[in-house]
């Protein structure tokens, strides 16, 4: 990356005496492999490289980006940003507060480095997964595997003297499977993600995992039973716990959303800025957002404003505890940033985002949780899901669920739907297991819509008296 262009950009910005200015340069070396029904349909290799300037001038915020690396272009984007900030004429001034400048560099080591990897190995891996599923002798007419590598170099500079350099790689695998058996179809999507090298491919155990998923779907097709609608004790697996933590704790606790900045797109929140300390759930409702978990898909050491990443308790023992904040939202809500500002790439502004969001584990084992249930449902994983734009009404359809009778897992369910309000959900949790498991996801927010890598996670949890239907 041409650091001198970035220096030139911040110096040009400072000439306009902004109350705050930052420059973020990013180069992403991207590789992508798409295998569809056993055929390599696409291999692409691209370099996305550009930079932006963000300026706070006269209390107005402007952002300008380019992928042309020249001093003239740098001056041009500063000029655009300056002009637009001056045009804005806001009634109330935006403030970013004051933070101490930081100089640091960080990187994530790759145990199995990409540069030492023969790319044909990646293709063979994908073909191996496809073959493993084909060898199951099931009818699987739709088998899509998409593998991506993003080698990122990033430099952030700001008007407070911060210069933060980062180097890391994120890898991801998306699978989308369609099974047809007994004149019925079942579909599932599964994603894997990691910050680091190709070592994750071994740790994911994709072949075994997807083979098992296919066999489970076959079992549901042939042996699935109907669920009588009614109130049940439900045991939710870590994947379900994780998505609920993300959707109905992480998102509603984003301060920019609470303050209305996302209202026309990603929506608002049922939480208000004075909700800290209010009860949201039972004592087991503890949700954490932590970007510092090594090699997690949502890992970062500094956010895109240069604030050090930190662990946050969003809900703590059933109480609303801490919002996700960046400098703008923190200043507006008279709080401090907690390093939650992220951008998908150089060409979008950083906004308040989650990282790795999870329900804190408890002290039960999964087996103990199930053993105690007289009449219930074990919802191991989910497929269709959604939540309203205040994050108050949520729905999760089981990908894999079973009846529990007298402490034993029985028949698989054809379909099981948990459609529940956010307070009801968090109030109904009565126990959680010791184990913590992660799922990778891409979280969408902002306009233009930005997808950032995250983990969702949790233990196995128990909810009592919850309405379920087919």
């Amino acid at each position, binding site marked *: 990356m041409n650091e001198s262009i970035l220096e030139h950009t911040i110096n040009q910005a400072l000439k306009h005496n902004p109350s705050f200015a930052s420059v973020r340069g990013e180069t992403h070396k991207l590789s992508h492999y798409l295998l569809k029904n056993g055929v390599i349909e696409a291999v692409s290799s691209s370099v*996305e490289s*550009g930079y932006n300037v963000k300026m706070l001038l006269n209390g107005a915020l402007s952002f300008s980006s380019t992928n042309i690396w020249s001093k003239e272009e740098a001056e041009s984007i500063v000029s655009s940003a300056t002009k637009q900030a001056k045009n804005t004429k806001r009634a109330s001034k935006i403030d970013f507060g004051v933070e101490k400048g930081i100089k640091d560099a960080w990187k994530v080591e790759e145990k199995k480095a990409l540069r030492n990897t023969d790319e044909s190995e990646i293709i063979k891996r994908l073909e191996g997964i496809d073959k493993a599923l084909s060898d199951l002798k099931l009818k699987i007419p739709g088998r899509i595997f998409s593998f991506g590598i993003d080698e990122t170099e990033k430099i952030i500079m700001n008007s407070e003297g911060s210069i933060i350099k980062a180097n890391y790689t994120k890898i991801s695998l998306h699978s989308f499977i369609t099974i047809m058996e007994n004149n019925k179809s079942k579909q599932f999507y599964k994603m894997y993600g990691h910050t680091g090298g190709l070592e994750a491919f071994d740790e994911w155990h994709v072949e075994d995992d997807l083979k098992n998923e296919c066999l489970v779907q076959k079992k549901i097709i042939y042996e699935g039973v109907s669920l009588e609608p009614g109130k049940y004790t439900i045991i939710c697996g870590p994947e379900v716990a994780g998505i609920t933590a993300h959707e109905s704790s992480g998102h509603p606790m984003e301060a920019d959303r609470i303050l209305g900045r996302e209202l026309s797109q990603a929506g608002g929140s049922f939480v208000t800025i004075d909700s800290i300390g209010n009860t949201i759930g039972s004592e087991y409702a503890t949700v954490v957002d932590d970007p510092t978990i090594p090699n997690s898909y949502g890992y970062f050491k500094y956010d895109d404003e240069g604030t050090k990443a930190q662990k946050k308790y969003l809900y703590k023992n059933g109480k609303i505890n801490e919002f996700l904040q960046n400098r703008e939202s923190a200043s507006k809500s008279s709080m401090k940033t907690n390093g939650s500002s992220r951008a998908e790439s150089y060409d979008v502004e950083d906004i308040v985002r989650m990282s790795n969001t999870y329900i804190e584990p408890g002290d039960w084992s999964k087996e103990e949780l199930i053993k105690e249930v007289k009449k219930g449902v074990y919802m191991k994983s989910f497929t269709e899901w959604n939540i309203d734009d*205040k994050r108050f009404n949520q729905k999760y359809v089981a990908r894999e669920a079973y009846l529990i009778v007298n402490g034993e897992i029985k028949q698989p369910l054809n379909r099981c739907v948990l459609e529940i309000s956010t307070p009801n959900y968090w109030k109904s949790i009565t126990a959680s297991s010791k184990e913590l498991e992660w799922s990778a996801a891409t979280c969408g927010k902002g306009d233009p*819509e930005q997808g950032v890598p995250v983990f969702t996670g949790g233990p196995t949890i128990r909810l009592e008296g919850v309405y379920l239907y087919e």
Partner: protein
Amino acid sequence: MNEKNYEDLCEKYVNYATKKGVEDVIALIEETNDMQVRFSNNDIDIINNWHSLNTSVYLSKDDKQIITELEGNESGKIENKIDEAIKKLSIIPKNENYGGIAKGEKKYRPYYYSKDIEDIQNLVDVVRAAINSALNEGAKSVAGTFYVYNTTRYLHSSAGPHGKDKSNAVTLSVRAFMNPESSGHWVSAQPQLSMLKPEEVGEKAAQIAKDYKNPKEGKEGIYDLILAPLFGGSLVSNLASMTSAFWAEAGQSIFSNKLNEKVAPDFVTMYDYADDNAISRRIFDDEGSPIKKTIWLDKGVYKTHLHNTTTAKKYNVETTSNAGLIDPSPFFTYVEPGDSSLEEMIAETKHGLYMVNTWYSRYTNMYTGEFSTIPRDAIFLIENGQIKESYKGIRVSDNISNMLKNINMLSKDRYQVEWWGEVEIPCTVPYMKINNVRITKSQ
């Protein structure tokens, strides 16, 4: 670098690769100059300016394909990337499905580029006009976005097609609130700035919010739905994305096995056509095939998937000129108008809901169509032809195939919409009435 140079560069990259033995080469350079104003709480949050230059080169040799892409203007780098890509071809297995790229000289319609969009200086005035109009109508809080898009594309193919395309558009999205529970949303997507009426967009959003008084918890059940263009546009965008042959054959579509089958009533026709009225207009696809009108839903019958040259060959048809560099995709959907109006639809409804917008559509199964989506903004209960009260907290939990079959009325008036990720593929849609739709709610 001037525009002629970009056309020359495309040709240069194609020649460079063909000299190295690559059989099919397409070079595509795209330059964009986009701007956006984001606003909320009646004021402007940020103004964004984006300038980008992207070069993509598609290479195919011995039925093996690779795409290499580079951003920016650093000369010489593309040739290096082409060299790397050619080297990589040796490790890529043959694609038995490969059917080549569009061949021969092509004639394109002249591109249409709106001067008033290109010359726009002050985006703030447009936004202030929309905000003030909504406030004057009684809204208490207004949020939204105003986009200005300017795109120039240059293409050169080793198989003959070459050309330049230039297009631009504006979109304004306004969401107005009377209070946190009562909101209305309206968008306007236009190929010319002079066609955008920001005051009307603000006013319409505020009117909906004002009508949506004291919503109470809705009830589960089966209802006839009347969908405003934002909601209908979201459904149409979902359906259009399922027309790509590439994804349909992998089961990601309710149309996977429905060629020439009746999937909707006789009066429902939908087609893909990125013509000059479309905000996503273009004159050629990514292979250089001239854009054409493709009726994929003809009087209720699903007639064709959307194709590039490769998928068309597999289905033994002509390309529909919907090529991307990897897969065919829809560019712009038109829904043919009906003969009704919103008022007539309400009058015809015994037990139904009028819904303004939706989001978060997700599928249990894209092949069978089981899905749900969550209405947002105003929801009105209709009983015996009249709006009775306002609802909140409900969800559409049904099947998109059934909803397509159960379209009952379409309005004469149509609206061009594009909004965020929910109406991702822009479209021109009427109001729609869809009968017998299942509504669920949280417990």
